[in-house]
């Protein structure tokens, strides 16, 4: 039946052509080259409820200044970085993008982010120095405005700690003792797990210990992933896994949720956003958790790392960079905007002034038993160690996942895994042609 076949081909051809036309139509409405008069901006973000926050702008200050922002919801983190870079190749990146701090060097090195120091320089006073420094990459330029931060903390089941007679660890040595003590009293329970599927956690722990993974000297990058501080962290966790004092299974799995929900794991080293995660992962344990500062490496220290957090950046492809920068500054420093961001998006603001107002006066519902949750959080946020990101964080993160997953599975040497991570990162920099200092 040759007729049928041909008909089908024609039908397919028509369908594909129609599809292509529709796509082309979608692509062309992004262009807005209006340099004077009304300006419309596109904003790629993954924060839930951002459209409602942007509505505040479009109806308020945006209306006065004739700057309209349209939100295009995106996938989070690394996926968006790839998408931005791809769009930038075609000179079609949106005006504004959300980017995690560790992705900024990658984006800057691809010339995707504009220097907006002229427009947002004044905002500096609203942020802690360690946070602001991440958006300048140590230069005079400013590549983004900080939006949210993730200072790390120690979360534990208050009731179970009492039941097993455990004390909240103030140092990492006490943390290890607590893990061992729990194993003695309840062999089927674990204090926590070492998870290799989120590199940000390990990066934050290393940052607390004083690690600086990427630094520059002259025109060269120096990679310090396998430095003394990180080695200390890796060995510490590796030993705990080796002696079975803690679990070695990944986080964010159904099994992990169950372990938290049933009290099989009774603590979690996490960040300020943990209440949200616990609400969905361990709904039955509401009101039973408490938050404390992260254990320290020595009693005299008071420092934490950060896990997560992101910023708002303006791209080099934007035809209206100063308008976009104005919006970025408003979004992350204006009280009304920050209150809406906290309410709709559940973010913890980077702006220090907002950390104790609005949504952050009352404890998160899941932690209703800890009245001073956000007062403590704000105190802890102040102690965040400076971070040092480089242009190939993505490579280091992937290498971490593979090397540490197999090391924790085999309960083998974490030091060797760390060396792999260092070597992979250096090899990638060299392959791309970056100047690398040995």
């Amino acid at each position, binding site marked *: 039946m040759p007729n049928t076949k041909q008909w089908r081909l024609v039908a397919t051809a028509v369908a594909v052509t129609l599809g292509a036309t529709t796509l082309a139509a979608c692509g062309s409405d992004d262009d807005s080259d209006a340099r004077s008069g009304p300006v419309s901006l596109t904003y790629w973000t993954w924060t839930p409820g951002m459209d409602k926050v942007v509505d505040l702008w479009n109806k308020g200050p945006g209306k006065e200044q004739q700057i309209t922002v349209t939100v295009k919801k995106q996938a989070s983190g690394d996926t968006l970085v790839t998408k931005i870079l791809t769009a930038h190749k075609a000179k079609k990146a949106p005006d504004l993008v959300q980017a995690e701090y560790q992705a900024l060097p990658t984006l800057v090195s691809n*010339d995707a982010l504009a220097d907006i120091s002229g427009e947002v320089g004044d905002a500096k006073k609203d942020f802690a120095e360690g946070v602001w420094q991440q958006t300048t990459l140590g230069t005079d330029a400013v590549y983004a405005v900080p939006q949210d931060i993730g200072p790390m903390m120690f979360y534990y089941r208050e009731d179970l700690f009492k039941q097993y007679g455990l004390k909240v660890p103030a140092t990492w040595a006490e943390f290890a003792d607590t893990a061992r003590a729990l194993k003695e009293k309840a062999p089927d329970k674990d204090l926590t797990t070492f998870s290799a599927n989120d590199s940000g956690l390990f990066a934050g722990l290393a940052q607390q210990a004083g690690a600086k993974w990427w630094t520059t000297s002259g025109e060269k990058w120096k990679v310090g992933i396998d430095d003394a501080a990180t080695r200390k962290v890796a060995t510490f966790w590796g030993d705990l896994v080796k002696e079975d004092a803690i679990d070695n299974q990944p986080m964010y*799995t159904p099994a992990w949720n169950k372990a938290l929900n049933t009290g099989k794991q009774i603590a979690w080293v996490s960040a300020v956003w943990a209440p949200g995660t616990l609400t969905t992962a361990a709904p039955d344990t509401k009101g039973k958790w408490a938050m404390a500062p992260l254990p320290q490496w020595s009693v005299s220290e008071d420092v934490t790392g950060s896990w997560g957090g992101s910023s708002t950046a303006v791209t080099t492809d934007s035809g209206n960079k100063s308008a976009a920068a104005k919006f970025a500054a408003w979004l992350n420093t204006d009280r009304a905007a920050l209150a809406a961001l906290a309410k709709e998006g559940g973010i913890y603001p980077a702006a220090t002034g907002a950390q104790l107002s609005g949504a952050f006066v009352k404890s998160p519902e899941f932690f209703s038993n800890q009245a001073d949750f956000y007062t403590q959080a704000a105190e802890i946020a102040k102690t965040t160690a400076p971070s040092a990101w480089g242009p190939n964080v*993505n490579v280091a993160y992937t290498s971490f996942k593979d090397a540490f997953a197999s090391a924790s599975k085999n309960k083998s040497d974490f030091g060797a895994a760390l060396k792999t991570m260092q070597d992979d990162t250096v090899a990638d920099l060299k392959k791309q042609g970056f100047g690398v200092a040995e």
Partner: protein
Amino acid sequence: MSIARRRSYGVRSAPYAFLLPAVILFALFFALPIGYALWLSLHKVKVSGLGLGAGARKEVWAGIGNYADALTDSELLDGALRVVGYGAIVIPVMLGLALVFALMLDADKVRLTSFTRLAIFLPYAIPGAVAALLWGFLYLPDVSPFYFVLDKLGMPQPDLLDGGPLYLALSNIAVWGGTGFNMIVIYTSLRSIPAEVYEAATLDGATPLQTALRIKIPMVAPSLVLTFFFSIIATLQVFSEPTTLKPLTNSVSTTWSPLMKVYQDAFGKGDIHSAAAEATIIAIVTLVLSFGFLRAANSRNKQEAAR
């Protein structure tokens, strides 16, 4: 056709006009992307100094550098070996089951044929990622009902997401999802065997088993070849099952299968040039293997026909 002997321009160009949409689509959506991928695979990005600021990144000619890197990359080779091991389980089990099910459905005295056929086929309708997620839950000891039962019965509870059992766990997902499709292909060709053949066989006193072995299987050999061909391609391109299981276990790396490595290089590292070279290599290997198999099968068929 014989009427159209008028040598007018319109008629002579008609076939080309009919071909045009197909040719345009082929060029736009097939030849052009492949050409672009090849072009990418022969280039690389060169950064200078710290790589910050405009103009620090240049696209330069790489020659066969990316191909040499890919071929000497132990991760890609290990991934290929893992996939071969996976395929060695999936293909025989899946096609064996498909053939057995098809023969059983085609046997004389079966009830509920259409229901059974649908029931076996149904998993094929479930997207691979969903199937992998579903099985992933069943493989995790803490949430799986199977482990609950094993535990209650005091039986050993193997870790299905580690070492050798991981291959079984992954293969199981593919077999579960793919058997139905292959069964339908084989079954359809079984139904097209003329009834006289069976009559002749019955007259000669063949038992149902003999009919199956001596008549049905040889006559559906072309479909078996076809399903084998599809299965090889699907195996070499395995991606969604290991990718979905990856977050659940420490045992599946980000570069477990060759295609995962391509994905990781393109979207994890942002190195589309290496990814393009690896993708080209995988495509060539797939072509060589699958067409090599088809040729071997064809020439065997011809030899048998000549005998």
